[in-house]
């Protein structure tokens, strides 16, 4: 099953199993969504479970919160994660803060197709997860495998907090795997060891997982898939670094944004005594995402770049 199919399966199973689940977004009904993620669901579940909206990200994110307040479990689709900037206010002020200041639960999910490598240019390639790192009250997940595409989405829908679910566009049809079982749930807040190793730790998520595994082939390097990038699975990271004494953070957001600064600062603050080398970061330079293949290929992390940085780290 493809990554994109696992997302669709998770939506379908959630719709089947829980009346409170419904989908909200632009062109997700008869059209099946810009990337076809919701294909067939409108036909199967009808107008009241798969709801096309006007173009108003802020309003439908807020409406999802309102429906969640009333006990529903809406799942919003953004056409591209880039447009999360349009719903930013509602996410950080309504979704994030409501439980803390009222005890009202807002169980809803925003699905956002993110990431580059699809020649989308600066407005259709962004990795906006960094904006939400540190926003108390939100949970932010980024599946990096077919299993997690399913398991994280099911868990996010069942979770009682608002969850941002960033699905990587370039993985939709690149990752293939066994169809996840209907009972598969990936616990929020828990990363996993994608491959055990002892000489260094690569902390990554999303498209970085596959990339890190490929780039570190033949090395005795541990690859951590964070799965939930906020709140961080601190224990997983710190325990691994304690064992390996070397850490590399690999991310697709530009160097000074995203998840790497927080992970690095955590390791530096709390894992300092274990470190035998400075933490290393592989990430694009601090620019928007460029369009032309020559530029985007230079911008994005590649297996070679990750390998190079790893070898340097191991040689330190």
């Amino acid at each position: 099953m493809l990554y994109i199919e696992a997302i669709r399966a998770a939506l379908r199973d959630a719709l089947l199993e829980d009346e409170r689940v419904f989908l909200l977004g632009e062109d997700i009904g008869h059209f099946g969504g810009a990337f076809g993620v919701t294909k067939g669901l409108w036909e199967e579940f009808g107008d009241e479970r798969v709801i096309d909206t006007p173009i108003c990200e802020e309003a439908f994110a807020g409406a999802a919160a309102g429906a969640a307040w009333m006990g529903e479990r809406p799942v919003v689709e953004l056409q591209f994660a880039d447009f999360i900037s349009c719903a930013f206010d509602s996410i950080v002020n309504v979704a994030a803060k409501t439980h803390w200041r009222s005890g009202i639960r807002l169980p809803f999910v925003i699905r956002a197709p993110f990431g580059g490598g699809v020649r989308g240019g600066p407005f259709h390639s962004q990795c906006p997860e960094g904006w939400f790192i540190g926003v108390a009250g939100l949970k932010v997940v980024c599946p990096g495998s077919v299993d997690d595409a399913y398991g994280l989405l099911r868990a996010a829908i069942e979770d009682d907090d608002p969850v941002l679910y960033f699905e990587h566009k370039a993985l939709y049809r690149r990752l293939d795997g066994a169809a996840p079982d209907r009972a598969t749930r990936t616990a929020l807040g828990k990363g996993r060891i994608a491959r055990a190793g002892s000489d260094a730790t690569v902390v990554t998520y999303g498209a970085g997982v596959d990339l890190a595994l490929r780039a570190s082939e033949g090395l005795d390097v541990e690859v951590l898939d964070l799965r939930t990038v906020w709140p961080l699975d601190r224990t997983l990271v710190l325990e691994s670094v304690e064992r390996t004494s070397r850490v590399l953070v690999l991310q697709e957001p530009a160097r000074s944004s995203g998840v790497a600064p927080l992970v690095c600062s955590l390791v530096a603050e709390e894992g300092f005594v274990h470190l035998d080398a400075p933490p290393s970061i592989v990430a694009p330079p601090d620019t928007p995402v460029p369009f032309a293949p020559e530029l985007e290929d230079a911008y994005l992390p590649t297996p070679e770049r990750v390998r190079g940085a790893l070898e340097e780290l191991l040689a330190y």
Partner: protein
Amino acid sequence: MPTEPCADAPEVGRETRLQLLRLMLLQRYAEERIMSLYRQGRIVGSVYTGYQQEAVGAGAGLALGPDDVALPLNREQACHYARGVPVAHVLRNFLGKATGPTFGRDGNMHFGVPEHGIFPLVSMLGDLCPVAVGAALAFKRRREPRVALTFFGDGAMSTGDVHEAINLAAVLQVPVVFVVQSNQYAYSTPTNRQTVNTNLAERLRGGWSIACERVDGTDALAVYTAARAAIERARAGGGPQAIEAVTLRGHGHAAHDDARYVPSELRERFQDPIERLAARLAADGLAPAEIDAVRQRAREEVAAALDEAEAAPAPDPATLLHGVYADPISS
């Protein structure tokens, strides 16, 4: 000018009239106490009142059914009382108490009361409108005969959120009611610097194709009647509804603002909603003593509530991290 009684509204019974009077008085007296606590430094931060706009929150709030939900703002304290929120609970929030609706985490009217179907005010103007639409969408999907009602000001109408929310509501035809607090000002900005056509009901009909009645917001009976009609139209499947309640913000924007910029000619055009309803009740034949008794009981209710609120415990800093998440992640 002598106080002009509320226009008669024969379908509104005496019980309801008295109830409206009580709700407005609770807001009035509670806000009086709040202002004086603020001046004494016993309430910190800033303080917003709904002085002379009490009829709007009271009328719209009372028109709701018990299973309906409300998303009121700062000016609509009486809406909380209409929903059954105890005065002490409101005051505990102003006082930052641990047992208040935000556990001391937010002040003012910035709180929700889940058990009374009230969503917490979010300061970013417009943000509540989409939430109301979403609640109404839930009702529609589940075929529940319930309505969500929210408020926004003449100023907030300029925000993208209000536009997006009303349009979304209109397209989805959900049972939501928007009450526009058309109180002549947004902070220091008069409505004619906020929008070209200050008749907001006309704008709402023409721009968003939703029904919108324009009512005198100092007339509690008129607000109640219009709100009730709008709520019942929404409940009956008529889609989103609006009411523009025309008032004047009686105080400054917040306690620090003396509102010198409000011309006195404008002030003269608006009467006090409480006195207007009292005058109506008097014209109805209610004895002055009975009206005074309502006032007295409200005053006592507020005084007792204040004692209760002040006695409540302050929040414990150790609890700060509690409830950031409903499902906390252990790590």
